[in-house]
Structures are given as C-alpha cells and as structure tokens.
C-alpha cells in the first residue's frame, strides 16, 4: 500500500524543469518577426502584381491598339505619369494608415 502511495505522490509531483524568465518576451518577439516576414511577403506580392498588371496592360495596348500610344501627344503622357505616381502613393498611404491607426488600435485594447 505504501508503494502505491509513493507512486501516486511521485506522479503528482511537478516535473523539474522551468522555462527561462524571458520566455514570454521571446515568444512575442518571435511572433512579431514572423508576422513582419509574412507582411513583407504580402507587400512584395502586391508590388509584383501591380507591375505585372501594368506590363500586361502595356502589352495588350501594344498588341491590339498599336496606334494608341503614337496618337497620344507627349503632353498627355507627361500629365498621365505624375497622376499615376500620385495614385500609387495615395494607395500606399491609405494602406499604411489602415495598418497604423486601425489595426494597431486593436493591439492596444
């Protein structure tokens, strides 16, 4: 009977191992790093997608409407490029603000 009790008590005794003091911090740091990596991957894919779309558009115009580019005056082209740049910058800004102001507010709560 005594042996049975010893076995019971031994099985209920804590395992002799403790995690390091900074364990919680290291887990959170690892999670943040992982999230950052996957975020970067997404942004890279978006940039690649946009570049591919622009290229595809250009190829389509070149293939099906070869005269269109030639017909456009240099003046129009000069106006179009800054407009496109501003549009891209605005989209990037909206994305950034969305992440900073809205998603990070959730982190604080």
């Amino acid at each position, binding site marked *: 009977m005594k*042996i*049975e009790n*010893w*076995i*019971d*008590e*031994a*099985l*209920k*005794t*804590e*395992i*002799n*191992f*403790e*995690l*390091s003091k900074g*364990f*919680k911090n*290291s*887990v*959170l740091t*690892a*999670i943040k790093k*992982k999230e950052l990596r996957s975020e970067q991957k997404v942004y890279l894919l978006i940039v690649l997608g946009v570049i591919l779309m622009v290229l595809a558009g250009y190829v389509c115009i070149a293939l099906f409407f070869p005269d269109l580019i030639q017909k456009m005056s240099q003046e129009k082209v000069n106006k179009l490029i800054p407009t496109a740049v501003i549009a891209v910058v605005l989209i990037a800004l909206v994305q950034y603000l969305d992440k900073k102001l809205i*998603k*990070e507010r*959730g*982190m*604080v*709560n």
Partner: protein
Amino acid sequence: MKDQELVSQVLKGSDTAFRLLIERYQRLVVHMVARIIDSAMDREEICQDVFIKIYDKLSTFKFDAKLSTWIATIAYRTAVNFAKKKKIDQVDLEAVSFKIGAEVSMAEEKDMKQFIHRLVDQLPVNYKTVLTLFYLDGFSYPEIVEVTGMPEGTVKNYIHRARIKLKSIVEQYAKQEVALL
C-alpha cells in the same frame, strides 16, 4: 479573466492577453514537452514553437473543447513530431530496460519520489504522456483520448500497465535493499 474572453482579446491583437494565456498554460505545455524531450534547450525551443502555433491557430478554435485540451493536443503533437525527427525511440513497455541508480534509500520519501521520477522518465513516450495528463494535469480519460488520439481502452491500459511496472520495480528494489541490510 475567463478563457473565452482571453481568447477574444488575443484575437483582437492584445499582447497583454497573450502574455496571460502563456502564463496560464505554460505549466501544461511544459509538462507535455518535458516528458517527451530530454534536452533542456530543445524543451524551451519546442515550448516556444507550441505557443507560436497556438497564436497562429487560435482563430480556428471554436470552444467545442476545453482550451486546455486543445493546447495540450498542440503541445503533444509538436513534441512527438520533434521526437520523431530526432529519432527518439518509441519502444514498448516490456522492451524497456530500466536503469536503477544505487543511491536511493527506501527510508527517505524524497529519495523515493526521485527514484520513481527517474523510472517514469524511462517509460515509453505514450505511457509518460498518459500518466502526466492523468495525474499531473488532472485530465479525464475522454480528454486524454482527444489529446493523444489513442482509444480510451488503450489509455486506461497504459495507465494500468505503467503503474504495475513501476510498482514491480519499486518492490524489487525494496526487497534488494532489505536483503542488503
């Protein structure tokens, strides 16, 4: 804070809530991992992996089981997969040759507990896991079934056989010590 609220806070992105979750369940994760893995460095790394997996998969947890059962399942699978990669042998109970140290005294209860602990450490992984979940974490048979994926009969059998084995070794050792006196 209840588990449900804690999980919802973590899903909203609260670091504080996740710290609390780690604090609440690190004991359980340590039990699962430390029983299967011997190296202290590996144990810490695997515990970290377990909590990263918990964070990643938390949105899929729908409270159809207890959070502790779900966390124990992740810890068990992560540790077992690591053991398989490291080719840690999974032998049958009868095939284990227990190494018994000579420095234990039957009179000292503390020594005896340590002696039994050393025996438990030498049990096959499945036996150790089942014993830990049952005795140390207070899991029920259905919960152990959920964590390990073993049939309930096997779980009961493992606990019974492991206890008999431990008892027989301790008895044998006690006789030897009495004979020496």
